[in-house]
């Protein structure tokens, strides 16, 4: 396996018929590891990477039911920002943002992180008051944020509809210049490759069917590729967190919903930034490939089906056309759904459990992608030290019993 990519390796491969080694080795599980991570999405792979890199635990297996980049990591709309209202949430997402800023170099893999800015639009006086409050909170927390008015938005994004005659006229927005997008499955591949190089086994097409618990301690997992033992198991299984929790006799305060997105055919560059609107509920950016990447909301019913209702797509398309009438003739190319794990307070659970040695990182709901490096980082430290990372402390599962919720629902830029 090629240990390091560089301009020299690129040049060499260019002259030798692009003869690249396989980036991620295909491995079969050993019988025992120090740590098993259930779920090979971005968060799980990031956890394994930081366990190996920062915590010195390299005897780690990541067990993935499907293939790397085939779950929610490859299904989201790739938006990255850290402009959350609450101190606890903004610290966690800002931690993640700082890791994003050096990630391509750190992983030696281009994750195509592009800080093209994120606008969160306001359409009513109350929206604007909330935006000002959130921007002020961001600035106090050291997160870059400004309030911009409709005129400035129009100057920056000439194709946006700022007419006063719109059904929901744009009054202004918050703007985080450091926000942006990244290549989502590239993030999974980058973490997977970097973790493999450090000695982590990434086992694909291996579904966990049971968790072995003895006298309140985790012993290992049963999988479709046989039993694997470990004293510590981290569950990072997003929409299937309830299913995994049940295997260990636990419950999590999560419900799984379909979240949909769609992309258009590729076009010439027309939108250079990310635009989100909570009020009309849609968000859009243009990928480097040229397609518009559009995200919708969740369906209200529970589902594990990776597809949602047509009315959600229609509602979202209407919202995008309200903002960008110019897109009315754009043809859509693909549409899909992912299953998101929604917590009552729209904040994640990063926590030990009643079962010793078993940890959960779940409940990221509709907005987990932006947190990928930060989530993996704090979860790795939580597993390695058997003690919650400082930034993860407020996200203990006990907050649903104590009442110390982190009320980000509707308080963040949008629900995503």
């Amino acid at each position, binding site marked *: 396996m090629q240990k390091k990519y560089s301009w020299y390796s690129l040049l060499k491969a260019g002259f030798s018929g692009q003869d690249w080694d396989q980036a991620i080795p295909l491995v079969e599980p050993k019988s025992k590891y120090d740590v098993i991570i259930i779920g090979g999405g971005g968060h799980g792979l990031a956890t394994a990477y930081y366990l190996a890199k920062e915590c010195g635990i390299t005897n780690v297996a990541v067990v993935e039911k499907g293939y790397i980049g085939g779950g929610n990591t490859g299904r989201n709309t790739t938006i990255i920002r850290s402009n959350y209202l609450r101190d606890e949430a903004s610290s966690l997402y800002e931690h993640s943002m700082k890791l994003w800023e050096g990630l391509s170099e750190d992983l030696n893999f281009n994750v195509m992180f592009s800080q093209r800015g994120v606008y969160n639009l306001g359409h009513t006086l109350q929206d604007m008051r909330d935006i000002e409050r959130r921007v002020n909170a961001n600035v106090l927390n050291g997160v870059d944020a400004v309030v911009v008015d409709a005129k400035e938005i129009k100057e920056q994004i000439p194709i946006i509809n700022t007419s006063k005659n719109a059904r929901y006229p744009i009054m202004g927005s918050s703007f985080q210049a450091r926000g942006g997008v990244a290549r989502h499955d590239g993030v999974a591949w980058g973490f997977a490759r970097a973790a493999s190089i450090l000695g982590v086994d990434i086992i694909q097409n291996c579904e966990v069917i049971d968790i072995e618990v003895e006298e309140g301690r985790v012993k290992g997992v049963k999988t479709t590729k046989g039993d694997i033992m470990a004293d510590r198991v981290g569950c990072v299984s997003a929409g299937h967190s309830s299913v995994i929790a049940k295997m260990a006799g636990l419950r*999590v*305060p999560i*419900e799984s919903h379909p979240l949909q997105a769609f992309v258009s055919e590729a076009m010439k560059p027309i939108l250079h930034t990310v635009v989100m609107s909570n009020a009309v509920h849609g968000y859009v950016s243009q990928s480097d490939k040229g397609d518009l990447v559009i995200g919708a909301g969740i*369906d*209200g*019913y*529970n589902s*594990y089906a990776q597809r949602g209702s047509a009315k959600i797509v229609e509602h979202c398309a209407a919202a995008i056309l309200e903002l960008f009438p110019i897109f009315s003739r754009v043809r859509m190319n693909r549409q899909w759904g992912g299953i998101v794990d929604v917590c009552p307070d729209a904040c994640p659970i990063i926590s030990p459990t009643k079962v010793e040695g078993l940890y959960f990182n779940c409940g990221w709901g509709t907005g987990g992608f932006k947190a990928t490096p930060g989530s993996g980082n704090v979860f790795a430290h939580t597993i390695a030290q058997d003690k919650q990372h400082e930034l993860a402390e407020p996200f203990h599962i006990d907050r*649903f*019993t104590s009442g110390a919720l982190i009320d980000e629902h509707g308080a963040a830029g949008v629900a995503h």
Partner: protein
Amino acid sequence: MFLIDCPYCKESRDQNEFSPAGEAFIARPQNPEDLSDAEWADYVFYRSNHKGDHWEQWVHTNGCRKYFLVKRSTISHEIIKVAAFGEVTSDSEL
């Protein structure tokens, strides 16, 4: 998208007319003063999130506006049974 038989309207109508209203058979505690924090958390926040057949509540928002019970697969979205409140009283039929 699926069709739902409203047990009150006695008609099979488009899902767009209906809104989901959470898991069924979550009864408000009869003895609120006696409940521990953990029991309250269980009532307020913890749901089965079952993968498979799931009893849930729906409301015919753009129709009769009444709530009713639906047993639906969360894997295939197939509706297995629809019932008015009282016709089914617990998830024992799951």
